Each structure stands twice: as structure tokens, then as C-alpha cells.
């Protein structure tokens, strides 16, 4: 992890670097720059770093550390007047620099350490790590997202359910005459109770039961940290899990999982025998709220004031990521509008960012949570399990009682 390494000879994926005209518009858009004010934390500075490393023929440990300070939220790409897909460049650099290498297995390492003299926080972390190794598949992105610094910053660990939704329902067939499958994702499927159950209730009003095929991780967390091979392996496992039957739609309550599957599955598997299947499946992955909205599903939220934290992936990557707002409105909710700048603000979790840079993540997240709370909602809804976890953690540390949920009833 600490050694320098040369860039791969194929630099074609860094070609878009040349499109950057260094205007600096990305600076003011970056939530990390907003706190640190370092050029090197904004996209323009990151691209300068990548250019330098490619020219010098060497990725350093400092490069890996600096690249991990990007949320991949994409706000820089949104404001880029030259149309540079900055997040794709940073991810490619992370992969090329080997950022993911040292992260895989962090959880297992924590378990191997000697027990003597550990702080209460570290003991708590080890209990959680034991749950992680027992209750999640090895490829689960959750394992990349609970590095030790996270806890040292005084953050809370979620309380895993005794029996998760996937423990209970994996293997359930579809009923009601339509071939609908659920992909919960690691957060909603294993860690946070209630998401799958709420989705089931919504489907039941349409007379449907969705199938729950055996499933692991979408691979987004691995992709985000630059663990390219792990991301490809996760993608392949995902395709194999969902290719057994001809699904009409695969519903994902987590917009980040859905975005990753829709947008990257075919590319990740392009050079494998699964390429065609992956393409077909990616087209059938649906943001669960988008599908429910189209099919006439609804909830009963008459008169309830709801603030929505739109995950970055819902905002810019997933198809129809804003559908959750229309869904809530159709369900009778009074959905509050946030000013554009606050609406676009990332929660600060950013995959493994929250684990690697917990204090920065907290400061970014607090701004977003305060903006959401300022609207005086009875309920906060977000459609990503990473955002959910981040916002709940911050709410708990601030003593905020407003329920925060991925599905609309706000059960905690």
C-alpha cells in the first residue's frame, strides 16, 4: 500500500484530462474544497495530480491518500463548462494507483488483532466486524465502509437486525402474475431493517409479491475505492444471481446500487462471456420508486411534511432518480423544496470516504442535515442506504428525533 507504483501503460482512459481547460468552476462546487479550501481537494487540482503522476510514471502513497479525499459526488462534473466527467477520471486514477488494494480485508484484520488493551470503541467495532464477517458476503461493500478511523471520530455503528430481510426472504418466488425481482443491496438487505418490508407492502397494494433471488453486492463500493477486480467480480456474481430467470424488472430501493448496475454493469463485464446478459439485465434494473410511480403504486402520507435528500447517484446517474419526489407527492405528502444549492449538497458519506475521512464527512453531512431540518419536516426520505446511514448517524449525534427513512413511512 505504501509503495510507489507505475501507471498502467494504457493511458487511453485518461484522455479526457485534456478536455479540462482549468477554468476552476469546479472549485466552488466541491463540498470537500468548501471545507478545506485546498486547490488540491477540488477537481481541477485532482486532475493536475493525475497529470503529474502519469507524466512522472509513478503513483505515490500521497496520491492514493489524496484521491481518497473525493466523494465522487459529481457536482464538479455538473458545473464543468468543458463537460469533463471528473468522477470517472478520479475513479480510473484510484484504480490505476491501486487505491483499493489495501482496503479489502480491513475488517478481517481488525478481528485478528490482539484483544488486550483495546479501547471500548475498538471493542465495539470488533463486535460489529464480527457481525459483518458473519452476516455479509465477503464481497459486500459494507466491509469497505467500516474502516477504523470511522469509529475513532466518535461515530456510531448501526445496530444490525437479528434476522435481516435477506436472511428471511431470500429464495422467495414472484407472485401475482408478474416477474418482478428485488435487489436490496447490502445496506437495505442486511443492515437496515424495514426497507424491504415497506417495499413489499407497497407491492402488495398492486397485488404483487416480488421474488428475492440469492444476492450479494452490486460492487459499487469496490468500484468507488478503485478495487477494479473486486468490482468486476461483484458485477459477474450479480449477473449470475439474476440471470436464472427472465425478469420483467429488478427493483432496487437504493438509487446508488441501481445507478451502478444500470450504468456500469455492461462496461465492467464488456470483455467477459457475461457481456450480453449484463446489458440486458442492466436495462431492466429500476429505481424502485421510479417503477412504483409508473405502475400506480402509492403510500398513505396525506398532509405529512417530508424533506427529501436526493442521493448524488439519484440526482445524476440513475434513470428517473427524482421519481421518489413525485411518488411522495402522489402519496399525499407535502414535499418541501430546498434551495438548489442545498438540494444538490452531498450527504458526505461518499462510499468509503465516510470511513476514510470521517471528520470531513461529518462536517459535510451536518450542513446537509441542517438544511433538511430547516424545512421542519416530520420525516426525511432518502433513496440510498449510504446516505441513510450517514444522516441517521449525524441525527443521533445531534439528538435529532426526526425519523429518516429509505421508504416513506419513516419506521426506524
Amino acid at each position, binding site marked *: 500500500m505504501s509503495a510507489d507504483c507505475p501507471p498502467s501503460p494504457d493511458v487511453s482512459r485518461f484522455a479526457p484530462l485534456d478536455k479540462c481547460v482549468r477554468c476552476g*468552476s469546479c472549485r466552488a462546487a466541491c463540498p470537500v474544497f468548501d471545507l*478545506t479550501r485546498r486547490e488540491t481537494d477540488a477537481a481541477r487540482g485532482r486532475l493536475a495530480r493525475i497529470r503529474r503522476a502519469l507524466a512522472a510514471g509513478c503513483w505515490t502513497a*500521497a496520491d492514493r491518500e489524496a484521491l481518497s479525499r473525493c466523494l465522487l459526488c459529481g457536482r464538479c462534473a455538473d458545473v464543468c463548462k468543458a463537460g469533463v466527467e471528473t468522477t470517472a477520471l478520479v475513479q480510473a486514477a484510484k484504480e490505476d494507483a491501486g487505491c483499493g488494494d489495501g482496503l479489502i480485508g480491513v475488517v478481517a484484520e481488525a478481528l485478528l488483532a490482539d484483544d488486550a488493551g483495546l479501547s471500548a470503541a475498538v471493542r465495539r467495532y470488533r463486535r460489529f466486524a464480527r457481525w459483518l464477517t458473519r452476516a455479509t458476503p465477503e464481497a459486500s461493500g459494507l466491509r469497505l465502509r467500516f474502516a477504523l478511523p470511522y469509529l475513532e471520530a466518535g461515530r456510531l455503528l448501526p445496530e444490525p437486525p437479528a434476522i435481516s430481510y435477506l436472511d428471511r426472504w431470500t429464495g422467495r418466488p414472484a407472485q401475482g402474475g408478474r416477474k418482478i425481482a428485488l435487489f436490496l443491496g447490502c445496506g437495505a438487505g442486511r443492515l437496515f431493517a424495514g426497507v424491504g418490508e415497506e417495499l413489499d407492502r407497497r407491492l402488495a397494494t398492486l397485488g404483487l409479491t416480488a421474488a428475492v433471488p440469492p444476492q450479494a453486492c452490486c460492487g459499487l463500493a469496490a468500484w468507488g475505492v478503485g478495487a477494479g477486480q473486486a468490482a468486476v467480480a461483484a458485477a459477474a456474481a450479480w449477473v449470475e444471481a439474476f440471470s436464472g430467470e427472465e425478469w420483467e424488472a429488478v427493483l432496487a430501493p437504493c438509487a446508488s446500487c441501481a445507478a451502478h448496475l444500470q450504468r456500469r454493469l455492461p462496461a465492467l463485464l464488456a470483455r467477459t462471456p457475461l457481456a450480453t446478459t449484463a446489458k440486458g439485465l442492466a436495462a431492466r434494473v429500476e429505481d424502485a420508486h421510479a417503477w412504483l410511480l409508473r405502475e400506480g403504486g402509492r403510500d398513505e402520507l396525506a398532509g405529512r411534511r417530508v424533506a427529501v435528500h436526493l442521493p448524488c447517484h439519484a440526482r445524476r446517474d440513475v434513470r428517473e432518480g427524482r421519481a421518489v419526489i413525485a411518488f411522495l407527492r402522489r402519496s399525499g405528502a407535502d414535499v418541501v423544496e430546498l434551495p438548489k444549492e442545498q438540494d444538490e449538497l452531498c450527504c458526505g458519506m461518499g462510499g468509503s470516504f465516510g470511513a476514510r475521512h470521517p471528520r470531513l464527512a461529518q462536517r459535510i453531512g451536518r450542513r446537509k442535515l441542517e438544511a433538511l431540518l430547516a424545512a421542519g419536516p416530520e420525516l426525511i426520505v432518502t433513496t440510498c442506504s449510504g446516505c441513510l446511514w450517514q444522516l441517521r448517524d449525524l441525527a443521533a449525534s445531534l439528538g435529532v428525533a426526526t425519523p429518516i427513512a429509505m421508504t416513506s413511512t419513516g419506521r426506524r
Partner: protein
Amino acid sequence: MNLAKELAAIVGADGVLTEAGDLAAYANDSRVEGVPPRAAVLPADIAQVQAIVRWCAARRTPLVPRGAGTGTVGGATPVTAAIVLDLSRLNRILAVDADNRLADVEAGVITGEFQRAMEAQGLFYPPDPASADSSTLGGNAATNAGGLRAVKYGVTADWIAALDVVLADGQSIRAGVRTRKGAMGYDVASLFVGSEGTLGVITGLTVRLLPKPASKETVLGLFAELRLAGEAARQVLRGPVTPAAMELMDATAIAATQGRGGDALPPGRHALLLDVDGQPDAVRAEADVVADILRRSGAEVRRARERAEAELLWSARRSLSQALYNLRPQRSADDVTVPVSRLVELIEGVASLARREEVLQACFGHAGDGNVHVNLLYDPADANEVARVKRARDELFRLTLRLGGTLSGEHGVGLTKRPYLSWEQGPALIDLQQRLKRTLDPLNILNPGKVLP
């Protein structure tokens, strides 16, 4: 590393960057490539800026002040193993005095964020450089940045009441007044405006404000010939209405925006885009007057029916600089400025010199100020084309001076205009500036190698 440790003692460890990848981000401004500095330092208050300047003075180490690095002439580009003083952390709006229409700000406040913060209070900070979404008020002052609203409201210099400046010996001064006028002593604040960090480090500003105009209308004139657009701009300024902005865009520039979010501007013609602002009734009447002048000058006139439509037009205008890279990999971007009455001669002259040297060119810019951004587009890999651009650019400068203009309306001198200062200014004037520089910065540590020959 000794250097890092000593600087960290001033600003804290997280305010000093010395790692190669970090420094790569500080080796240039938005257009001019230099060398990585020895360190980038991010002070958080004036006392820290003073300490850094003293540290540099004691070691004769060159110091390059930097706002957001959005300049285009190399003003913030280090050319030696310097210390870059990044003022981004001085980003507080300290006080807003609505009664006296003043605000006290630190130098690193982002201009666009300041504009929005003032508008939220019913106030208005008029200077509006195209880089406003990222550039800083301190950087705007150090370059005397212009922008889109200069035709009616003037440039940054016109809105500065006072400046906090750290001098080359580490002393901090406040020059200027908090009153509407002031006549005590020399106008020292003005000396630092546009000095590009060569005379002192601007750390804070007291800027003037206006009440926010209640209403705004946007008028677009489309012309078959660029000459007609230039002539129309002159006619508008001869008329009774001073537009808040009047921007010229030639057909080449407009073509570059197509398919890049700039589709609001129809291709194939040249455009004048105008804003009129003020009280609602007056604005409507004034927009009618402007539209009428444009029509009589041969334009097809369109008026934005709602704000969103106007925003699309302005956003297309703001995207022009970047969009030009769609046409060729590189551009020279000179902000030559002539008296408005000579605008047509300038754009016709540019067309003919570009034809002569067979260089693709695009003109856009602030027609109301006679400030045209002349872009000569080329491929840096083509040595022959590079040579033709160089000749065309020299010819452009001679033409500008013949028309009674100046070689930079708003970008400044920095590195790239430095060889041309003597084209425009006489030896006695340059000598005076050199003596000023020696007096204020006898050790020559402040942004050496910039502005003056």
C-alpha cells in the same frame, strides 16, 4: 522538511502543502503553465499572511499570491521555486452595512457567492467577471477584473472603497475610506488595484454596494454581418439607455457552443445580447428603446419572456471561453479594448488579419466597453500555425494601439503580456512603475518577473 515545519508553525500543518502531487495543482493559472512552487501555504487570517511574508523576506524567497487561479495571463503562475500564498481560507464576509452600502470582506471570498449573499439582502455588487463562480474578490481587485456589467457599472476598481494590504516587509495597512468620498493623501488603495500581487498582498476589501435592481430584461439582437452588430452597439450607446450589459458574440463563437448547452443562441448569425435593469416600468420602456435601435441597425430582435429563458442565453454567453476548445485545441485569448467608437474597425481589422495569416478566429466580449476577446484558434502541435498565430497576435496589438486602445482591458499583464507593456507605455512611465516597485518591494520577493519588464 525544514521548510514545511517552519511554515506549519505559522499556519498549522494542514495549511502547508509540499507534496509533489499537491504542488502540481499550484503550478499554473487557468491558462499559463509555470513550475511547481516549493510550497503552497493557506493562511487563515491577516496575521498569518504577515508572518508568511516576513518569513519569505527573511529568506529572500519569492512569494506568489493566489486567489482562485482563474487568471489567464500567468499572474498567479509560479515561474521560480516560490512559495504560493493561497488566500482561499480568508473567505469570510465580515460585515454588511446596508445604510452606507458597504461590505467588509476577506480577500478569498468567492465573487459569485458574495453576489448571491448580497442579493439575498436586497443589495447588489455590480462587478461580474465571467469567472465569478470561482474567482475571488481579492483576485478581482489584484487584477482589476472587469466583466459583463462594466458598460453600466464599471470594473472592480470602481467598487473598492478600501483595501487591507500586507506590504513586502510584513506590515499591514488599510488604505481608503468608508465614506462616499475621500481626499486625504494619495489614493493608495488604487495603487494596489491591478498590481497583480507585485506590490503587496491584498487580504481584505471594503466594497461598495447598490440596492439590487428590481427588474431586468434581456434583449437579443441577431445580425447577418458582424459589422452591423458592432455598429448597433455604438448606436445603443449613443442613445438614451445605458444597458447593464451588452455582449457581442460572433457566429464562430456561437457555433462552438452548439450542442454544449449553448443552444439558446441560434447558429449562423452574430449576436448582441443586452440586459437592461432598474425599476420595472422603466426597464420595460428602456428595453423597447434598445430593441428599436437594434432593429433599425438591421437586427432580428428576440426578447426573453421569462427569467429562465434569459438565464439560458447568459449561460451560453458564459460558456463561450470554454466552448472554443471544441473548435481547436488551443487559443490565444486577448482582451484588447478600444474606444467604443472604433469597435467596428477593430472587428473588421481582426477579420482581415486572421484571413491574411489563415488563422481561425472567434470574437466575443464586452461590446459596450469596446473590449473584445479576440481568440486566435490553433493547434500547438502545428509549428507553422503557431508562428502564424504569433504574427497575427502582434498585428492585433498594433491595430489595437493604432485605434487608441489598450492591450488588456481586464485580464492584466502577468507573464504573457509583459513583453508588450513597452508597446503601449513610454519609457518614462515604465521607469516610474519600476521605481514604485523597488520602493514598495526592495527585495523583489512579491511575484517577481510579472507585469513589469
